[in-house]
């Protein structure tokens, strides 16, 4: 059979909603795109632990501390599901981690923003996890089997993340003036970066067309972004807070909220490594990796020693 035949069979499978599994034939570009996307998603989960981990020791109560610990542990788990899915495409974990540490691989820029106050943790849960969920729910139906299965697992756990964030802000919104101000301030700072999470506008996104045809993605960046704006614009009313956008307005004709323009210059600056915390995040990852090296080596040595003992007995 020729490559064209293989490609035809492959596309037929996709069109018939048959999932692609690791040992199936797939075009190189499909493998590459999935590998890039899944590994970046994995890196995002891992780096995403850093801004929240920042507040574990300073959470205002034992309850909030336990919740935050559980959430951060979930993110580590999500990273592992995704690394495993990416590994089925033929890249080793070690290579992926090296690419993250060298700056070659990217992760979601949202995690290059700092968590300055306790209210930021609520805003991250509500807005950042909320935006991620939009993407992730779509991805539970992605065409690559291992990725779709990882996303199903992740989505089950992720809704706790968003709910705890909103509830935490709700408590602040009903608190003292200082607490309400802190809540509003966090929303002001996280709103625009959260909108940027959906990526460039459809007219600028080079990958989307092919990804749609292969059903890696099923909704465009702008569609997902609009869905998110519509959801948050309603939810914020319950908090009695304001989104920092003068142009935000219900459009009766479109049946959607209109909203203002994202600062794309800032978006690209952060992608290129010039965000507030890019360096800090990568330094923290590298430090953890390097300082953990002796542990990884010791575990291997111990496993070898045990194997020899069993063999000798």
């Amino acid at each position: 059979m020729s490559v064209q035949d293989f490609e035809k069979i492959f596309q037929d499978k996709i069109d018939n909603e048959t999932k692609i599994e690791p040992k199936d034939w797939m075009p190189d570009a499909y493998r590459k795109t999935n590998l890039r996307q899944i590994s970046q998603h994995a890196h995002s989960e891992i780096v995403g632990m850093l801004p929240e981990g920042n507040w574990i020791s300073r959470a205002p109560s034992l309850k909030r501390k336990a919740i935050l610990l559980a959430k951060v542990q979930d993110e580590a788990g999500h990273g592992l599901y995704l690394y495993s899915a990416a590994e089925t495409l033929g890249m080793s974990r070690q290579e992926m981690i090296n690419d993250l540490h060298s700056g070659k691989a990217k992760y979601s820029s949202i995690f290059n923003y700092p968590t300055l106050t306790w209210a930021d943790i609520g805003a991250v849960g509500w807005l950042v996890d909320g935006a991620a969920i939009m993407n992730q729910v779509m991805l539970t139906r992605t065409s690559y089997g291992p990725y779709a299965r990882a996303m199903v697992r992740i989505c089950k756990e992720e809704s706790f993340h968003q709910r705890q964030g909103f509830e935490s802000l709700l408590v602040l919104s009903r608190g003292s003036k200082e607490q309400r101000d802190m809540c509003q301030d966090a929303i002001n700072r996280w709103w625009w970066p959260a909108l940027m999470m959906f990526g460039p506008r459809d007219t600028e996104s080079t990958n989307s067309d092919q990804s749609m045809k292969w059903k890696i993605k099923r909704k465009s960046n702008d569609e997902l972004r609009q869905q998110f704006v519509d959801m948050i614009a309603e939810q914020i009313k319950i908090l009695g807070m304001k989104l920092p956008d003068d142009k935000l307005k219900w459009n009766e004709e479109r049946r959607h909220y209109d909203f203002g323009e994202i600062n794309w210059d800032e978006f690209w600056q952060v992608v290129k490594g010039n965000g507030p915390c890019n360096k800090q995040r990568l330094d923290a990852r590298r430090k953890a990796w390097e300082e953990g090296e002796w542990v990884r080596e010791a575990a291997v040595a111990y496993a070898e020693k045990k194997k020899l003992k069993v063999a000798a007995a």
Partner: protein
Amino acid sequence: MNIAIRKFYYGDIPEEKGGGKTDAKASGHDWPLWEVFIRSKQGLDHKHAGSLHAADAQMAIENARDVYTRRMEGVSIWVVESKYITASNPDEAGELYEPAMDKIYRHPTFYELPDEVNHM
């Protein structure tokens, strides 16, 4: 394999705008890969849950506990090193599964019985 990864969020940043270095080469080794099977409750089969890296079987079980059973998803865990799993080849699916397709008499619905014969 050396694949240039330059995209940023869910693969949506155009290549040339991503920036970043491309000179990294892999170093060091991964711990062996293990497949994890979880029994969700007594009486049910163990089912494949996913995979993880661990130095040995004991660590694989402990990691599987943390990764796959944080919300009481299991009461029993099996782990096996992935290299010991032999999988059928998808290209041979035709030869392997086709012979079963024309044997409809293996299914109970093949047999038409009078209505009076209930619940057989």
